[in-house]
């Protein structure tokens, strides 16, 4: 072929050299791959270091290399590094390939001789392949400056505000009637004990009235098409039965509505709301929503009290769901989390024993605008508890439910201990497995709660029961727990038990992920492109994640992620165009027989049939480069850049060299 190939084998310190005979691979390449065009083969301690890169650049310039193969780590780590190095030396970046002999060899195998042989095979495959690599130019597509943010919790609000403040338009979609998310339900936030609503509502209002934010509450994303820079999104605006343009948010309809139902959403099932309602006083927007399945008029055809009393005729019983179509360049998913349902742990008695509460119920109980007006009382609404037990790790760090630590519950439980003491003076027991208070001022808060006289019992609660064994336990809840610090079983009689429930991926996280083309990790949270270095982007360009969508987080971390995702989006918007890998399929019209086999294979509608010429054409702007049509063409008329048949065939030959 006349190509001059340079082979570079990396030691990666001992990461590769510990399990692969690097010098052996280097010499083997020189001896056995010379007829494939290898003219130089070198090894180096760290190829990715600037000295390693200079080695390649020097060879390209001095030896006139036309292809470069680096045997090192995964292309997902350093392909860009080496391609950029080649480019600096004047070689088209797509003529450089990486062979993964670290992730796929040295780190996963245990026999040095076998690992060395496998490294040679992988190297030979790539050397044979790279001969058929073509010089390619990156594709550039313009970026639509609008952004879609899905989820109006604190992470989504932060992301939307950052982008809007920078002067770009944001569509903020929230499926509940108001933005605010879980943070709006909390009473106090740890460790500062700020009132949650006091710090959140100004942000909500800012987002609600921002000229650059189109707020779409009571709305859900129905479908997404397109790709980075050019997404087309259909949003369903669910019928509110309230005409937003006419509604003044006066609340008369809520007052006059004769029906009350249990509020499973905002009040976590702990309180009631009207059938036409705003979830809470500071809701943004403050237009109410009519709950159709529970509405007397929709059920019996009679009532319409809300319509009769509305001073602006804003009630419309004929309203239907509306569908909105918007074009955006980037999408941030801040879809948050669900709470663990403690009914799944029957021995804790939640739902059966009235004075066992979830953490969210207790948040609402503490809140001055909640069902008990902020009084910490038992289910009867008046008795003040004398003893309260707070159970940590409910549904978290438990092989039967969720293996992971939910991260926030220790601090939340400490906060509850403080609030119970402050409001009732009760004895408080915290039953914990381990205390986890790792961030700023968290350990200090733990110390403060210790000093306040809260009892700490190190042990996982076995059972919560109302079956008394001794007279002192009569009429109490008994918490059975092994105190592992004193090595004794304890039965703690209590009036109230609070279950610090863990947080879980949204029940529909998987479906939502599929809608946007991103995937979930084993525990169900959305996967980041890199868990450490790229925590807010995903494998799908233009789809970002923030907040608890990618795993348990506290408020500061969610806010940081919202801002980080926004920064990434702004970076893209300001570049005005996005570079895309030039991996595309093209049709050789002379070879195309017009059989149309490929026509139905493309999910991006990039393939069209030209009737006049009886041939198929591929629109490179729509093609995403999956290569399915290339594989399907019986005439071999479609070729795919970067992964051509010639390249793959040559790679197979190389991999099987000597077999």
């Amino acid at each position, binding site marked *: 072929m006349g190509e001059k190939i340079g082979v570079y084998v990396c030691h990666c310190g001992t990461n590769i050299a510990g399990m692969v005979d690097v010098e052996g691979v280097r010499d083997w390449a020189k001896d056995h791959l010379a007829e494939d065009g290898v003219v130089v083969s070198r090894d180096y301690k760290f190829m990715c270091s600037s000295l390693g890169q200079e080695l390649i650049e020097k060879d390209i310039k001095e030896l006139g290399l036309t292809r470069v193969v680096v045997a090192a780590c*995964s*292309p*997902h780590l350093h392909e860009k590094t080496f391609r950029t190095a080649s480019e600096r030396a004047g070689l088209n970046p797509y003529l450089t390939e990486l062979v*993964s002999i*670290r*992730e*796929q*060899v040295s*780190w*996963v*195998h*245990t*026999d040095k*001789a*076998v*690992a060395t042989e*496998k490294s040679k*095979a*992988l190297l030979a*495959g790539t050397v044979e392949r790279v001969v058929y690599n073509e010089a390619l130019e990156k594709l550039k597509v313009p970026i639509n400056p609008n952004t879609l943010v899905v989820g109006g919790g604190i992470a989504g609000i932060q992301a939307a505000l950052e982008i809007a403040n920078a002067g770009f338009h944001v569509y903020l979609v929230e499926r509940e009637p108001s933005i605010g998310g879980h943070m709006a339900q909390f009473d106090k936030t740890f460790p500062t004990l700020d009132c949650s609503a006091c710090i959140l509502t100004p942000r909500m209002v800012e987002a609600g009235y921002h000229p650059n934010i189109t707020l779409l509450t009571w709305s859900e994303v129905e479908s997404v098409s397109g790709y980075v820079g050019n997404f087309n999104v259909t949003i369903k605006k669910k019928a509110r039965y309230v005409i937003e343009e006419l509604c003044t948010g006066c609340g008369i309809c809520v007052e006059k509505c004769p029906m009350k139902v249990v509020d499973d959403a905002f009040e976590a099932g702990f309180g009631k709301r009207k059938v036409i309602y705003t979830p809470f006083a500071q809701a943004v927007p403050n237009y109410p929503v009519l709950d159709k399945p529970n509405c007397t008029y929709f059920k019996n055809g009679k009532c319409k009290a809300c319509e009769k009393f509305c001073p602006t005729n804003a009630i419309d019983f004929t309203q239907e769901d509306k569908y909105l179509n918007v074009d955006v360049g980037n999408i941030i998913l801040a879809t948050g989390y669900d709470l663990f349902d403690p009914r799944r742990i029957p021995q804790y008695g939640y739902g059966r024993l009235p004075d066992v509460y979830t953490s969210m119920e207790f948040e609402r109980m503490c809140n001055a605008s909640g069902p008990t007006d902020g009084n910490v009382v038992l289910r009867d609404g008046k008795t003040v508890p004398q003893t309260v037990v707070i159970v940590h790790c409910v549904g978290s760090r438990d092989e039967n439910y969720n293996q992971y630590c939910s991260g926030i519950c220790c601090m939340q439980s400490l906060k509850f201990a403080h609030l119970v003491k402050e409001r009732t003076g009760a004895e408080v027991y915290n039953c914990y497995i381990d205390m986890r208070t790792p961030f700023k001022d968290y350990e200090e808060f733990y110390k403060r709660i210790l000093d306040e006289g809260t009892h700490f019992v190190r042990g996982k609660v076995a059972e919560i029961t109302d079956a008394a064994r001794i007279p002192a336990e009569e009429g109490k809840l008994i918490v059975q727990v092994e105190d592992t610090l004193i090595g004794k079983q304890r039965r703690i009689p209590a009036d109230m038990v609070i279950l610090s429930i863990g947080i879980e991926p949204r029940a529909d996280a*998987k479906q939502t*992920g*599929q809608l946007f*083309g991103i*995937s*979930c*990790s*084993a525990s169900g949270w959305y*996967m980041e492109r890199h868990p450490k270095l790229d925590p807010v982007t995903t*494998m*799908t360009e233009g789809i970002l994640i923030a907040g608890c969508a990618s795993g348990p987080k506290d408020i500061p971390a969610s806010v940081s992620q919202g801002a980080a995702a926004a920064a990434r989006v702004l970076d893209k918007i300001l570049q005005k165009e996005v570079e895309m890998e030039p*991996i595309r399929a093209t049709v050789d019209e002379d070879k195309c027989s017009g059989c149309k086999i490929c026509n139905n*294979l493309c*999910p*991006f509608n990039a393939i069209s049939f030209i009737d006049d010429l009886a041939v198929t054409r591929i629109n490179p702007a729509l093609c*995403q*480069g*999956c*290569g*399915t049509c*290339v*594989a*399907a063409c019986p005439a*071999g008329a479609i070729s*795919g850049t*970067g*992964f*051509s*048949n*010639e390249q*793959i*065939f040559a*790679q*197979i*030959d190389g*991999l*099987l060299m000597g*077999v």
Partner: protein
Amino acid sequence: MSKSFEPVIVGFTCNWCSYRAADAAGTARVKYAPNVRLIRLMCSGRLDPTFVMKALAGGADGVLISGCHPGDCHYIDQNYKALRRFLLLRRTLKGFGIEPERIKLVWASAAEGVQLAREIDSFVEDIRKLGPLNWPKWDSNGHAAEKQPVMEVTA
């Protein structure tokens, strides 16, 4: 090298899921059988059945095909096309007198490094039981020859 039969397996992986699963297995130092040699494609839908034939003809004893889980495809639903081709390939192999178990389809997400490693291990054992493919090697004139592959697979 041990004297027992060591199968050679060519694996086709998707850039977005199973190739990253292999990366994840590496990062977590999950050990697995060294018999598999992976080729990265952008999508399992890129898998041309001739790739599999070429690998088997070229000396592989088995071929692993892996893609994103159904519903998780980076390109919406192209992994279903890989599934179709896989099922067809198994029938074709049977027609050639080759055990269809020599090809295996595995769904592996980018998070499933451990699962992919275990699938590779079990596939290697399956192929070890089947024994070498021992496809007779013929030259282009139909005479038995040592180095010619059984069929000429062209691009």
